[in-house]
């Protein structure tokens, strides 16, 4: 637990420190980018006072932390809206995309990885390994662009843009269908990207388990190959839980570029938009929210672990 509190504090402190350590003054990052050059000294003073930037650093830090506790992440320099509102608008889209991709890639990647390890050394094994290594080596945004070319350009069966239809499709089933249609390609892209990685983890995890003594024992008992492998799979699943949690940050990174390609209105696309418009408060807010999400995923895995693995429970009790 202390570990996660520490990570959270580091993320918060980084967010506080970056604008103050970056070239220029913090003010450069708090006014709309096109006004930075023309701002007058009096206006400068006003901005300083408004954001409490003339106070001692420690007090600024304290005010910053207090603000975050109250859900105050500042205002967008481009839209003038509270950053929190903008983030909360985008969050559900990213949650659906990331959650869906994790679940799907787990089924596909881990399934194929276990199969590959179970029949290690065969032709399919090497073929699978090379295939998934290739899949893991392709830039996610590039896979997304190619899928767009195929499905929206040539086949013209899926929309190119966004997550909601531009013209109101009414509510209910029609809207659900429209949204699902637009979710499909980003979801497929992110799933493909993650499946490659999970294949490799699942494969090496099961391969490791299959060389253990209890597998020899199971074989000696005369169990069928299927049941022997089943023994291994149960244990090989455990490191996968950790892998998914540890890699939550990576999925979020992948989502950032994939959302950008598909103009999907999640947090990743928001990051891209604020990079282009130099909207620093939004950029920082988005990073903070993603960091909190990743920390929460890790914490969740830690809490789940004793539930799945009795051995961890036993260790904790001792």
């Amino acid at each position, binding site marked *: 637990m202390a*570990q996660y509190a*520490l*990570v959270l504090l580091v993320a918060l402190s*980084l*967010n506080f420190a*970056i*604008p103050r350590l*970056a*070239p220029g003054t913090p003010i450069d990052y708090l006014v709309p980018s096109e006004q930075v050059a023309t701002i007058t000294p009096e206006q400068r003073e006003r901005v300083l006072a408004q954001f409490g930037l003339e106070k001692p650093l420690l007090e600024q830090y304290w005010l910053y932390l207090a603000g975050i506790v109250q859900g105050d992440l500042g205002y967008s320099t481009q839209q003038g809206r509270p950053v929190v509102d903008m983030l909360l608008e985008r969050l559900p889209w990213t949650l659906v995309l990331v959650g869906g991709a994790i679940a799907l890639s787990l089924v596909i990647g881990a399934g194929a990885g276990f199969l590959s390890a179970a029949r290690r050394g065969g032709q399919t094994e*090497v073929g699978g*390994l*090379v295939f998934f*290594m*290739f899949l*893991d*080596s*392709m*830039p*996610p*945004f*590039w896979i997304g*662009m*190619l899928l767009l*070319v195929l499905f929206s*350009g040539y086949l013209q069966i899926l929309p190119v843009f966004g997550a909601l239809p531009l013209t109101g499709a009414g509510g209910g089933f029609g809207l659900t269908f429209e949204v699902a249609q637009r979710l499909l390609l980003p979801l497929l892209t992110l799933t493909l990207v993650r499946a490659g*990685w999970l294949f*490799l*983890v699942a*494969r*090496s*995890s099961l391969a*490791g388990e299959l060389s253990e003594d209890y597998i020899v024992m199971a074989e000696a008992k005369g169990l069928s190959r299927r049941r022997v492998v089943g023994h291994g799979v149960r*244990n090989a699943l*455990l*490191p996968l839980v*950790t*892998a998914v949690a540890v890699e*939550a*940050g*990576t999925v*979020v*990174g*992948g989502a*950032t570029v994939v959302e950008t*390609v598909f103009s999907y209105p999640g947090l990743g696309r928001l*990051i*891209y938009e604020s*990079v282009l418009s130099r909207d*620093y408060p939004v950029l*920082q807010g*988005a*990073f903070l929210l*993603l*960091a909190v*999400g990743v*920390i929460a995923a890790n914490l969740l895995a830690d809490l789940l*672990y004793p539930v799945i*693995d009795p*051995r*961890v429970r036993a260790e904790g009790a001792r």
Partner: protein
Amino acid sequence: MSGTLLGRIGAATLILFVVAAVFAPVLAPYDPTLRTAQPFAAPSFAHLLGANDVGQDILSELIFASRLSLTVGIVTACLATVLGATVGVVSGYLRGPVDGVLMRGVDVILSLPFLPLMIVLAAFLGQNTTNLILVIGLLIWARPARLIRSQVLSVRESGHVQAARAMGATHGYVMIRHILPRITPLVAAQFVRTANVSIMLEASLAFLGLSDPFQKSWGAILFYANARSAFLADAWLWWVLPPGLCIAAVVVSFAFLGYALEERVDSRLRSILPASEPQKDNEAPTPVGGGTLR
């Protein structure tokens, strides 16, 4: 197909790309910064891969971009490997409170979402290649550090290290003369993997428009292609496909090379170490080649 063969394929491909990068001015038919064709020109004999939105020859762009992509990958990997190896060796050899503090730091870095953090850093620090290398390098050394540390933990217990310490060798001497040579294969494998990760991260950051606007990498070419919606016209074939193929080819070559190296490290360590520590169940195994967008 063995790991060695994969390793050879990887090495050969990489050498090809390095040659292309070194001899870019000779190989490229045009200066990629000049307007030499009609904007959005389709491929022709004069311009094999057509031209981009401002009329620059895409083939020449690709060849010159290999310089930036490879340089960022290799320089970043050097930085991250040196950092990771130093922290790993010191931490694993000294153990105790130093180890505790360093590994806590490693855990913290590993728990942050890398790409969003890099985006924030790159956006604030300004877009140039040096910043890009620093931003990537200073975040990705943590994983190699942890792997190297766990190896050092077992190497430090082996006979010759104990003997050297019994004879009064200083910590620094033991670490450099006795520990480092033994973990070199692992460090090499980590270098390859780090290069792999950095090339992918550079491509992602460049794709998001965070690279030096005056130096194009493969990711930056794709940024412009995406911004101009090249994938909706036939242009995807010569504007979107080739840069992505280059990235994938280099990254998979590094992955193949890393796979071959790790296979050798494995067998070598098995033969020299009495009994390596069994892997803890609650630690995720590190798969070969994987995990590029970290």
